[in-house]
C-alpha cells in the first residue's frame, strides 16, 4: 500500500458467539481483509454501550463497527434487538451533529459468515478511507508539542 494513502483506524466490537466466531472463520478460511480493523471481543452486541462508539471516535477511531448475531439468533435472546434500537438512535444523533453516519457500522454476522465478515470489513474500510479522518477526535495540544 502506498505511503500517502490514508489508513483509517477502525475499531470493531464483536459479540463472542456469532461475529467474533465469524471473524475467526474468516481467518481460518484465509479470507483476506484490510489490517486496519482492531477487534474487541464482547459477550453480546447488547453489551456495547453506544457511548463506546462515541468514545472511540474521540480517541481517534475513524470508523466503529458493532457486529452481533442475526435478529432472533442472539445467544442471550434479546441483546441484539436492544442494540439495534440503541444504535438506531445513536446513529441519528451522530448524523445530526455532523459525524457521517457511515462511520458507525452496525450489522449482523453469524459464526458461519466468515466471508461476509471479510467483505463487510473491506467495504467499510474503503468507505471510511474515502471519508477521511474523524472530525471529533480529541486534540491534545500538549501531545503535539511534545511529539513534535
Amino acid at each position, binding site marked *: 500500500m502506498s505511503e500517502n494513502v490514508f489508513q483509517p483506524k477502525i475499531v470493531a466490537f464483536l459479540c463472542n458467539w456469532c461475529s467474533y466466531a465469524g471473524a475467526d472463520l474468516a481467518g481460518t478460511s484465509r479470507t483476506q481483509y484490510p489490517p486496519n480493523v482492531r477487534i474487541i471481543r464482547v459477550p453480546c452486541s447488547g453489551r456495547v454501550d453506544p457511548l463506546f462508539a*462515541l*468514545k472511540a471516535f*474521540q480517541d481517534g477511531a475513524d470508523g466503529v463497527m458493532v457486529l452481533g448475531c442475526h435478529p432472533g439468533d442472539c445467544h442471550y435472546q434479546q441483546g441484539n*434487538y436492544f442494540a*439495534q*434500537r440503541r444504535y*438506531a438512535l445513536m446513529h441519528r444523533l*451522530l448524523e445530526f*451533529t*455532523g459525524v457521517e453516519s457511515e462511520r458507525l457500522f452496525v450489522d449482523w454476522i453469524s459464526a458461519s459468515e466468515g466471508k461476509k465478515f471479510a467483505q463487510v470489513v473491506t467495504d467499510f474500510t474503503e468507505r471510511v478511507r474515502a471519508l477521511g479522518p474523524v472530525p471529533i477526535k480529541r486534540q491534545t495540544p500538549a501531545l503535539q508539542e511534545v511529539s513534535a
Partner: protein
Amino acid sequence: MSALEEQIRSAARQYLENGDVSVVIGYERGPKGKVRPAFVHQADDAERLVWSPECNLNLVTYLHNYKHSPRRGVPVPRVAVVVRPCDARAVNLLLHEQQIKRENVKVIGVTCAGSEVDGELRQACTVCQERVPVIYDVLVEPEQPVEVPEAQDDYGDVAEMESWTPGERLEYWAKEFDRCIRCYACRQACPGCYCFECVAEQVFPHWTSIALELPEKYFFHVMRAFHLAGRCVGCDACEVVCPMDIPLSKLNRMLAKEVEALFGYHTGDDPETLPPLATFSPEERLRL
C-alpha cells in the same frame, strides 16, 4: 393577580393547611422582578406564588431533592409542585422510573398557553397543542379557554438541519458547543438527569476528560442527548438555563422526532408504557 395565580395560591394554601404536603414548589418574583422557583413551607407564604409566561423552568427537577427520607425514621417528604403540561410528562417519567411515589406528590397542573424566553414565546410552544397536563391533582384553569395553535409540531426546524451536509451540521454544532463552559446547568435543570454521578464526571470508568475543550463538550452533549432518548419531555429547561444560549433543545427534539417516527412513543403519556430503550420488537428492522 391573575385567575391562575389565585388558583395556584389557594391550592398551595390548602395543601399546606391540611398538612397534605410539607412544601409547595412554584414560582415567585425576585427583588428585581425576575421570576424564579419558590419553595413555600407555610400556608401564609402561599401569597408569594406567581404565575406568568416567564415561568419557563421545569420544577419537577426539584422533586429529586425530596425523594428520599432525610433521616432514618423520618418519612419521605410530601411535596406539591406546579407544572405545565410538558413538566407533567416529567412527573410520569419519574413515576415510571420509580423515583417518586404518586402518593407523595401533589401535582398542581396549570393550563398552559406557552411560556416565554426573553419575552418571546418558546419555539416549541408555538406548535404545542397540549394545554392541560397529562397528570394533575388540581387543575388550574383560566376563565377563558386557551387557544390551541393550528400548527402541530412537524419538527420543521430539525428537518431543515437534517437537509444540510454533515459538514454544515458539524460546523454549526462546533460553533454552538464552542461557547459551552461545561457548567452543567442544562443537566442540573433537567428532571431526567439524576444519576448519582454523571458519566461525564466519573473517574472509574473514565469515559471522558475533565477538559473544557470542544471534543469533551461534544461528548457531553451527545451523551446527554442519548441518555435522554425516549425520556426527554421537551420542556427545554436545558436550553432556557444555558448561560451561553446553546440551542440544546434541537438535539432533544431530533431524538424525539426519531423516537416518535420509529417507535410511536411520546415520553410521559402515562407512567406504565415501557420507553423505547426498555423494550424491543422482534419484527422491526431499523436503519443502521
